């Protein structure tokens, strides 16, 4: 045990660049091994169900490769590049959300404000590291501006409901997601230049929790808590997901500024937030008439991006503030 801790300590003492290099070698190595295993197994299997499972696995792996590549490129291109990349993801997620929210003609000006003013401004504020303004810009100022623009459009029909939809969409897709690049730019004492680790830590533990929860609910066939919304979500699978995320967090603590116990705790909080965020997004999609998760649907607007970023949208703000408050 002490040998392991020594080794973690040795990793922590490496320079930032060496740590990053090690991280990417480990990440791409793990992905290469996983892809090789899937390819080898596909040679031996030929039944129908296996083929379907393998297709899903391949798609999941493809998404992971893409995510890892984006992460790498955004690291190479510096903080501005990654802020821009998340800005684009935010734009696409908000586009999908607004499509499913069925806005009316009177919302047009408010939506223009959201897409072409609020979104770029929020990411500009992130890029400039104005974290005080960043935390209040959308919850306070945009919250007040959207209904004003909406009232000026002169359509009183379901006024509060329409504005609530737009504000909620901006909160989740722009405010929530913008906390991911904010992690990159967060300046912590004795942790300079390692912001990318925090983002990687967040994405890794949330993904670990999601995968564990998914596998648990498939293997155990537990009773769903809210079958009207999600046929799989159960408290025990949820708890297994969190536990697994906490373990992953402890294992990755060497890339964070905190000790293993704190890393495990913040990983658990982030994973819980992400899993609940996904549940909320499923409820929203059910209401919009989308029956399938992902983009296997003919409904206009169900492009499947929202499903994938929803856990991050919910986990990033919670994790960001936990790091900001409790980090040394």
């Amino acid at each position, binding site marked *: 045990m002490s040998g392991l801790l020594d080794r973690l300590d040795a990793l922590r003492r490496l320079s930032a660049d060496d740590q990053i290099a090690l991280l990417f070698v480990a990440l791409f190595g793990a992905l290469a091994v996983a892809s090789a295993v899937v390819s080898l197994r596909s040679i031996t299997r030929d039944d129908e169900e296996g083929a379907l499972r393998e297709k899903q696995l391949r798609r999941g792996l493809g998404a992971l490769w893409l995510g890892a590549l984006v992460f790498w490129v955004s690291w190479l291109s510096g903080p501005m590049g990654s802020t821009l990349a998340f800005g684009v993801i935010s734009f696409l997620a*908000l586009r999908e959300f607004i499509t499913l929210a069925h806005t009316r003609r009177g919302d047009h000006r408010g939506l223009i404000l959201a897409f072409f003013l609020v979104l770029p401004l929020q990411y500009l504020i992130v890029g400039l590291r104005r974290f005080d303004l960043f935390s209040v810009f959308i919850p306070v100022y945009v919250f007040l501006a959207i209904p004003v623009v909406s009232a000026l459009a002169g359509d009183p029909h379901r006024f509060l409901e329409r504005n609530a939809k737009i504000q909620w969409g901006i909160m989740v897709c722009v405010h929530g997601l913008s906390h991911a690049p904010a992690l990159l730019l967060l300046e912590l004492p004795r942790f300079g230049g390692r912001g990318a680790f925090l983002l990687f830590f967040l994405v890794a533990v949330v993904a670990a929790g999601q995968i564990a929860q998914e596998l648990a609910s498939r293997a155990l066939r537990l009773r769903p808590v809210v079958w009207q919304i999600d046929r799989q979500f159960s408290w025990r699978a949820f708890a297994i997901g969190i536990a697994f995320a906490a373990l992953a967090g402890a294992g990755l603590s060497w890339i964070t500024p905190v000790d293993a116990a704190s890393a495990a705790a913040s990983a658990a909080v982030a994973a819980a937030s992400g899993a609940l965020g996904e549940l909320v997004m499923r409820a929203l999609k059910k209401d919009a008439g989308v029956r399938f998760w992902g983009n296997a649907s*003919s409904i206009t*607007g169900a492009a499947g991006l929202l499903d994938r970023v929803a856990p991050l949208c919910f986990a990033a703000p919670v994790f960001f503030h936990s790091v900001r408050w409790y980090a040394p």
Partner: protein
Amino acid sequence: MTRADAMGMLIAFIARLVTGAQGHWKGCPPKAEQRIYFANHQSHLDWVLIWAALPVELRAVTRPIAARDYWTSSPFRHWLTREVFHAVYVNRQRTDDQDPLEPLVEALRNGDSLVIFPEGTRSHKGDPQSFKSGLFHLAQQFPEVPLIPAWIDNVQRVMPKGEVVPVPILCTVTFGAPLGLSAGEDKPGFLERARDAVIALRPSPA
């Protein structure tokens, strides 16, 4: 690459960024054969959306119909419709000695595909208006060209009437199964059937 090609790529990119311009091929695959696409008409963006939803190889041989007086009135409009979209120009004022379908017939003889909006004008709410007879006459003259119905969904939300800035909202173009003129079918019957085929493609939330 010419300037027109670059402009075309830019327009298609913007259309995809703002609307997604997803093509759902339900009744037929995208294929390099001569076709007449006909769709519901809700917005100025309809043509761009169908065009961007087509695979790149089909865009160059699929042509829109443009009103000659408006789309040739300035050098830029003329260049855009002629060089980028390869539009077929028609006269809106009917003259006695000319068949208004003549330019369309010529384009079809040439082997090009066409996109037409048989309602004639844009309809903003509910079901499409009844179809004009042009589609029937083209079906009569070119029985070998498949007629592909298409439903353009959501585009009226992107840019409502009177607005100039589009809002990013996802749109889809659903292409249906080809239909043709049956033996002995009369004009109102065929136009009604064609309109029903378009309406049947509307995606409905289950």
